[in-house]
């Protein structure tokens, strides 16, 4: 018996504007509303709306034998409500099919798990409330920002009542076929861990449209046969949702691929598609995952270096969290929201100075003129934030 589990990451940060040095103490507006609106509108048109529509159709067509899960960050939901409310409606429609599971995460898609246990819990709870409010959904599965995980995280989220958590299938921790197993969080009673099969996931997420790839073009039945050949029993496919229509444009054939995918998979004997909580319910844990250090799905290092790899990133993030206590004590709702929006991991990702293959990815996503620029703008904003605090 083979079980395939899909999860899609949906996230959009509140991108910062070019906050000017003379704005400090005078103008407290930090975010580029125009750019943020344009990006949400564009991605909604190219990805969210068509893909949601297609997936809802597929779930209904296959009578809920095709199922998927989503982790939609709070900041993404907030911007959809503001700039593209029809996307919220289409997610509601998806949830109503009964074939969709929504995952818990930090509302602000932050690294709070690494920096502040209390703030982490608060952000997870805010996100839980948001899912309840919008979709009437109470999440029991958890996906941390960019699959950031460690033993510490396992302990944190078990305390919060989650049953299962997603993480990256890091070869050097789990061995070659480790991603096919169900794992238990170290020191937890029975927190189950689903590990990403990065080869099969990246076939769709990264390589799909690459003409240099020997397997190009990729068709659904070919990929399904690889899934079948992959050692199981679990195959976890975790990808950015923007893969559909945004990273891989419609012209690459990605939607046709998706359209045929459930049929290709479900025609395989003894293969089923489940959501994370269904997997956790069905399978007992086979092994305990020992993961004392932080891992993630980012870059070739699979660690925190995409966000905290250089002094600029560490200085900015240290500064942000050094303000936590006073910001929260201020009771100023706007100030707290601004501070939290600045905790979104993307701002620190933009400051990365890594080279070679990874630098290309960083560059593609970077709205500023390079990592140094991202850093100095962030420090101006944090100075203003601190000034507001001391007013």
């Amino acid at each position: 018996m083979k079980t395939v589990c899909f999860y899609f990451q949906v996230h959009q940060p509140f991108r910062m504007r070019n906050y000017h040095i003379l704005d400090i103490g005078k103008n407290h507006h930090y975010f580029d509303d125009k750019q943020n609106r344009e990006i949400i509108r564009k991605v909604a048109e190219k990805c969210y709306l068509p893909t949601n529509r297609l997936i809802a159709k597929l779930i209904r067509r296959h009578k809920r034998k095709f199922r998927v899960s989503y982790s939609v960050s709070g900041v993404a939901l907030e911007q959809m409500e503001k700039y593209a409310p029809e996307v919220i409606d289409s997610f509601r429609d998806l949830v109503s099919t009964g074939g969709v599971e929504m995952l818990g995460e930090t509302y602000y898609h932050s690294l709070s798990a690494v920096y502040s246990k209390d703030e982490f819990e608060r952000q997870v709870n805010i996100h839980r409330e948001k899912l309840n409010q919008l979709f009437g959904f109470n999440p029991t599965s958890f996906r941390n920002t960019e699959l950031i995980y460690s033993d510490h995280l396992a302990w944190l989220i078990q305390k919060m009542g989650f049953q299962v958590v997603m993480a990256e299938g890091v070869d050097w921790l789990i061995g070659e076929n480790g991603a096919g197993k169900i794992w238990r969080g170290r020191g937890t009673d029975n927190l189950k861990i689903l590990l990403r099969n990065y080869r099969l996931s990246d076939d769709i997420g990264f390589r799909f449209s690459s003409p240099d790839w020997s397997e190009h073009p990729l068709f659904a039945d070919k990929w399904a046969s690889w899934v079948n050949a992959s050692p199981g029993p679990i195959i976890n496919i975790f990808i950015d949702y923007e893969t559909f229509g945004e990273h891989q444009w419609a012209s690459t054939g990605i939607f046709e691929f998706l359209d045929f995918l459930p049929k290709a998979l479900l025609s395989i004997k003894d293969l089923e598609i489940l959501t994370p909580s269904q997997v956790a319910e069905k399978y007992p844990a086979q092994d305990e995952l020992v993961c004392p250090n932080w891992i993630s799905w980012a870059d070739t290092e699979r660690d925190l270096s995409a966000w905290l790899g250089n002094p600029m990133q560490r200085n900015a993030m240290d500064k942000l969290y050094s303000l936590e206590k006073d910001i929260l004590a201020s009771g100023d709702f706007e100030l707290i929201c601004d501070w939290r929006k600045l905790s979104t991991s993307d701002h620190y990702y933009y400051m990365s100075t890594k080279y070679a293959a990874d630098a290309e990815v960083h560059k593609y996503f970077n709205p500023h003129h390079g990592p140094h620029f991202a850093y100095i703008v962030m420090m101006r904003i944090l100075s203003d934030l601190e000034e507001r605090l001391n007013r």
Partner: protein
Amino acid sequence: MFGWEYPPLISGGLGVACYGLTKGIARQGGKITLVLPRYYEKSPKFVKIVSTESIQEKLDSGKTLKKQEVMPIISGYLRPEDYEQWYREETVVGSKARLIYGPDIYGEIERFARLSRKVAEAGDFDIIHCHDWITYQAGMEAKKILGIPLVMHVHSIEADRAPYPNPRICEMEKSGLNAADLIMCVSRYTLEQVKKNYQIPESKMVVVHNGVELAGCAKPGRRPARKKRVRQILYLGRLTWQKGPEYLVEIAKKMLEKRTDLRFVLAGWGDLAHPIVERVADWGVGDHILFAGFLDEIDVKKLIRSSDLFLMPSVSEPFGLVALEALSHGVPAVISNQSGVAELLDYVPKADFWDIEQFAQLALQLLASPKLAEKQLKNIWPTLEKLNWNDSGKICMENYQRLMAGTAS
């Protein structure tokens, strides 16, 4: 007159000084035709501006490109190697740069000189006046045609600008200065540098200090006590070796060890920007040392006015106009001994650029004592009033007349 940049399109003090000088000379009755590589504004009333680019366009019979979209100005401070890198990048991204610009800055300079000949051939002139090495060749070409006195104005020399002077630029400076009938230096400091580096006899040189615009600046009275949580300390200049930004951040770090209610703002950008930003981050003081990036004139003024102290730790500063600007707006200053303005500003505390301890101590004293700062500003005011572009223009005119009389006899 041959210049390289002129307001509003300026990248540094050269453009500001050119503006002040032309205005000052015009006030004394001088009629100036200023030749620039490119200029898109309307000429001010007191000077006729000709751009060699427009001459080229006429030669090409009206073929025009939207040049501003490519690069509005080639900075007079751009290093030849940076120029080449910029050119390569522009070529890679497929911009039209290569249609307009040559692959190196020397080609630009040569073209400027070649097209400048057209101006010389067409006009009736008494004096040729050039500003810095990038225009020397044009001046020498013009002298060949016109046979009139050649004045080279030194705003800086290569040894000021680079720790390892570019030999080709040095060669161009040397031949230009040798060809000059008279050399005007922006300070005694610069005169000594020219003497030392190019063995030019002092008899061929005069000092013409820059001026400062006092319009909009009030004579310092009691400064209203500002109730601010942090004191703002300003650095204004390109982030490049010559200006000493590396020393500035060391000074800042020293001062932050003594008191934390300080915010340093570095306005400007340059080849050292990235390493300095990284160093500040590495020290974990990025919340106290902020980078403003490159600012326009209006924002610079606003930033000066909102500052409590100005620091200029230049490694080699031929003049240091920004220090005068800060002082004229009522911001006390500490400056390096290695600057031209140091010879003019008796009451401003000074230190050697490498003496971080001394710099920090002087700065902290000024911050701690508003009375001391007030006294400094009051004492400095008469000097500021004396340093005006009219007087600089007068010295220029006197020297022009001397030179013209000399050729006539």
